[in-house]
């Protein structure tokens, strides 16, 4: 017959206490709401994707996922918040191209995202689109490149070192043309001046101009990805249009602070895969110009490392650096 001795009870209690002091294990995770940090203000493209993603991840994890906007300092603040957080899986980051692989070449960062963060899974790859407005009446990429050789074209961007800026830099460098950059505060005002005929062209995210393309106000010359974009089937890729080695995309992924417990990380990767298997989520990604990704863990890390090298060369050639 088994009897509870005083020593046994104390032992069990102590063991329980010790266990509860340990980092969360996958079975209990998540036992409290998970914070998903977005490095941009509410209402932007990354924020929209993060909010839809959070609602899917909630279902997959079976616990609350709260989006927290921590905008500022070219999205470096959000990175820093997560880099400094406990690696318990309760503070995660939606990382994207700019802060993860471009900013390390431009700013003196206190936390190198490659060292301070653990990549969990990539969510989507969102290609950009090359659009011209009334100031530059060309119909194709070939005409565009021809024109760019005879005169210096002016382009607007969503800001210094933004995806739209670096993608255009790469295009100029690949084609060997000299382009003039006008930075704006966000894609909205830049598209406004493109429609108003104050700048020649823009390389920008699909959702920021899709309505204007469909309406004929702006002309889409090419998309920047490796493949054509489903919603714009007649628009060729830049690579198809005379710059075969060119490709650029803004991508989004899920990351956590360095040192996430392996099982938590696996559970989050599974959750992401589950979200990406949901046709409704995929559809909303596609509306935002995104294509779902299947890169996980090391694969995602390798992808980011390659991107970092690639954009580093572009940024260096264009000599944009903040001391």
């Amino acid at each position, binding site marked *: 017959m088994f009897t509870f001795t005083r020593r046994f009870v104390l032992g069990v209690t102590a063991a329980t206490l010790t266990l509860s002091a340990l980092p969360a294990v996958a079975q209990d995770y998540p036992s409290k709401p998970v914070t998903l940090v977005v490095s941009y*203000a*509410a*209402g*932007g493209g990354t*924020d*929209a994707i993060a*909010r*839809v993603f959070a*609602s899917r991840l909630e279902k997959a994890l079976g616990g609350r996922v709260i989006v*927290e*906007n*921590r*905008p*500022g*300092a*070219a999205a470096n*603040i959000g990175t820093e918040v997560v880099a400094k957080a406990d690696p318990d899986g309760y503070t995660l980051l939606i990382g994207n191209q700019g802060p993860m692989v471009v900013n390390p070449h*431009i*700013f003196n960062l206190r936390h190198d995202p490659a060292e301070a963060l653990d990549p969990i899974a990539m969510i989507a790859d969102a290609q950009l689109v090359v659009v011209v407005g009334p100031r530059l009446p060309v119909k194709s990429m070939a005409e565009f490149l021809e024109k760019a050789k005879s005169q210096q074209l*002016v382009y607007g961007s969503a*800001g*210094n*070192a933004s995806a739209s800026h670096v993608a255009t830099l790469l295009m100029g460098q690949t084609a060997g043309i000299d382009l*003039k*950059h*006008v*930075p*704006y*505060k*966000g894609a*909205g*005002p830049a*598209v*406004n*001046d493109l*429609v*108003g*005929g*104050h*700048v020649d062209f823009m390389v920008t995210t699909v*959702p920021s101009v*899709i*309505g*204007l393309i*469909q*309406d004929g*106000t702006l002309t889409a010359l090419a998309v920047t990805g490796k493949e054509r974009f489903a919603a714009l089937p007649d628009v060729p890729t830049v690579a198809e249009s005379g710059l075969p080695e060119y490709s650029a995309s803004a991508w989004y992924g899920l990351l956590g602070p360095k040192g996430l417990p392996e099982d938590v990380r696996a559970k989050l990767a599974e959750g992401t895969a589950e979200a990406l298997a949901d046709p409704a989520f995929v559809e*909303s990604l596609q*509306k*935002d110009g995104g294509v779902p990704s299947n890169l996980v863990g090391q694969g995602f890390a390798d992808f980011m490392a390659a991107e970092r090298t690639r954009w580093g060369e572009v940024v260096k050639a264009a000599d*944009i650096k*903040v*001391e």
Partner: protein
Amino acid sequence: MIETIEHLGLGLSVAFTLQNVFFCFLGCLIGTLVGVLPGVGPVATISILLPVTLSLDPTGALIMLAGIYYGAQYGGSTTAILVNIPGEATAVVTAIDGHEMAKKGQAGLALGLAAIGSFIAGTFATIVIAALATPMTKLGLLFGPAEYFSLMIMGLVLAVVLAHGSLVKALAMIVAGVLLSCVGADMETGRERMTFGLPMLIDGIEFVVLAMGIFGFGEIFKNLADPEKRDVMRGKIGRLLPTFGELRQNLGAILRGTGLGSILGVLPGNGAILAPFASYALEKRISDRPQDFGKGVPQAVAGPESANNAGAQTSFIPLLTLGLPPNAVMALMVGAMMIQGIVPGPQVIENSPDLFWGLVASMWIGNLMLVVINLPLIGVWVKLLKVPYRLLFPAIVAFCCIGLFSISNDPAQVMMAGVLGLLGFALYKLQFEAAPLALGFVLGRLLEEKLRQALIISDGSMTTFLTSPLSLGLLLVGAVALIIAVLPSIRRSRDEIFVED
């Protein structure tokens, strides 16, 4: 014309369903409340409510969010008038004369004029959106960097008129405002300017932080320092509603403000924020008693409030016709549309006419609701003045802090506002006015941005500002205003007007 009426008819039939009227009411009510609370603004509210709208139908969701936006513009003036703290950044101008009126025991009159002016402005702006959305869009598109810069220069010249004290001090404040707007990373090179290495200053100072600091916290310091002054307004509340005669006296100001606001609202980059300043300047220019501006002139409340509301409404035009958001709230509206599967852009009006016209018509219903919600509430709001200061002040400070924190979930913003509050108090002690500083700050940011964009496009040639007819015209208006201000004979009378305190 017939078409416009047909469209509005369709819109009204959509907006007048029980469900949509309810969403409109809910939006206006939430908007009024967040507007009244200092610092808690529509941006934070709408982003919190965004996921909720997923489960609503698109028209209802947008009607509610729009209601929050213009409801907040409206509620912001209540706090500005009663406690001299602009609940919304755009209410800075309303606070100048509105609060003076409250001190004179005319709080009810000021609130009533604000409500009725806003309603007239809202009604007119709704018609503008319905009838003139397309030409207004073209007007907005004419403003490239060069034209925008010239508009800002004109605004700066007019800013001098805002002052009711010494001209030199007003100029100093405008320059200080422009300088403050330059804090932060350079837009072209990303290099940090005047940040003293502080991470919280890298993105510059948010206008809400400046307004809450200098006006909000500053006002509280001021009241705590001068207990006798604050007791002046105790107990004097006065009539709640304006008389017919008072309305007639202010109708001109309301209509002029409405016109200015309707035009400035369509400009990209939050041109609507200029509207109340421009209206104040205009009213003071054409008034036969400009010396009283700043001491509680009803027109100085009715005009800017109408301008503010009209601008808030016409800023929907670029969103609806081009899918381009002119400010942060409109960017959130784009987000809401995307969540609902609607691609914002010119085709919305053709593909979903019921949504488009329903939203436009709901704005008019919303404005009516704001009057219905707010006129009876004026009595309640005015009673707030009876709340003992030992309870009122901590409450205001608490709400300011919540609002400031919610800007970017960052305590640094709250601290920054605290420091700016000390600056606001110092300005008050030294008898500098804060309103020109606020305007300088607003204009300064756009001024620099547009100057640099224009010069990049023109390869550094300054003639770009003269070769565009629109830009040239705006500069000429500014120049004429400046000449009038500095002409010796006129200046003598000016000095009499300005320096008497």
